[in-house]
């Protein structure tokens, strides 16, 4: 699923000056990342005006494993829309931008990639590992296959990230 996230500010990663040492707090807070040979990159904030955006291709593999993870930990059945929002919020945006800087979101291709038999076989494989019974699998399959167009994803993501103009 191709997603374009428009924002008015974003993060970039630049070399940490050689006379600066990151603290454990800096590392834990995600203000720095490793570069090469013991050097570091620091997270800086930039703005390039209209047109700046983050492009993302959310893989179906990440969607279905996120659904499994949340089911196991919270016993919550996620739809694809909700799983995509969690992936963007938890794994994508922290590297690129702050959710309060988002202006708009576009989605291309919202429909599930896997057929009912394929997604059922996937969840069946994890029955023991995730402690899933028949009702759980049926609920997960139904939620995964919930019809959702690209527009439905946009509406959901705008609401999830509290973007102005959300439905």
């Amino acid at each position, binding site marked *: 699923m191709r997603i374009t996230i428009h924002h008015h500010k974003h*993060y970039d*990663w630049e070399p940490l000056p050689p006379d600066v040492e990151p603290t454990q707090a800096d*590392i834990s807070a995600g203000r720095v990342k490793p570069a*090469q040979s013991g050097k570091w990159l620091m997270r800086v904030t930039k703005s390039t005006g209209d047109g700046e955006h983050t492009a993302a291709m959310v893989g179906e*593999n990440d969607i279905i494993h996120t659904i499994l993870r949340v089911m196991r930990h919270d016993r919550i059945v996620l739809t694809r829309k909700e799983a995509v929002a969690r992936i963007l919020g938890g794994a*994508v945006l922290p590297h*690129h931008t702050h959710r309060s800087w988002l202006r708009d979101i576009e989605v291309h291709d919202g429909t599930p*990639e896997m057929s009912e038999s394929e997604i059922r076989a996937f969840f069946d494989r994890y029955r023991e*590992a995730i402690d899933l019974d028949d009702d759980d699998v049926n609920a997960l399959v139904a939620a995964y296959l919930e019809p959702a167009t690209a527009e439905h994803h946009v509406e959901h993501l705008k609401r999830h990230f509290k973007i102005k103009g959300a439905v």
Partner: protein
Amino acid sequence: MMTAVQQAIRDANRNTSRREADTYSCFLATVYTKRGTKRGAWRHNLTTDTAGKTGRRDWQANAMGLGPSFAFATASGAANAAITISATTLTNTAAAFPTAGQGLFGQVVCAYGLANNSFVYGVIVSNTATVLTVDQWYSVTSTSGAAGTTPTTSGGSSTTGIAYIVLPGQAPVSWLGVTQNAVAPAATDTTLTAELTTSDWVRSVGTWSHTTNTTTYQHVHTFTSTTTVTINKEAEFGAVNTTAGGAMPFESAEPNPPTLVSGDTLQQTCTITIN
């Protein structure tokens, strides 16, 4: 006193160690257990520099700069009796595919079967003058690298055969593989030793993201384990499985290797700096 350029060149000529890479990755492992989340530490990667097709430099040069094989006479073939296809090969008995050097390694071949109206592509992992071997035939609509329907060779005629085109450049490196092997990575590695191939740990395509005009892009890969495993290393690949191999530009060891029990999830984040 400043060193003259010629002196610097002489010093570099004597230095057998490799210059550090300007394109590199860093990895972060996050493990989700039944009780909560264990976030690992960001760690420096190792960028492979083997003189050969799997190393980062060759892959990047071919990907960014077109590569050496993009306009040879049999780079495309209209359907005819000489062209046939199998699960991992495309044969054109009338072709003269380039084989010198790295041949067509890493390039993408698109194939279309007129008989069953199937359009697929594959990453070339080796070739002879007449046979292209690919990692698999991919579905063109899958974001997770799922296999597509192999085009049917039905009579091999101009109306029922196979048409193909070999594209310039290189296939992207978007597959992540993991291993329990704890031997320290080396820049000369071309494979991930003892890479896991069970169904829960086969290579996966992740979520790609990039912000316009910034210095990095990111991959996120998610796995859910069905057994107890300790993940010691990861690497990014340009092909779907260990049989195909593929380019392996980035490899990383886990400083604190996470042990996952059945049901645990590993989310592996890879930031690649392209500066």
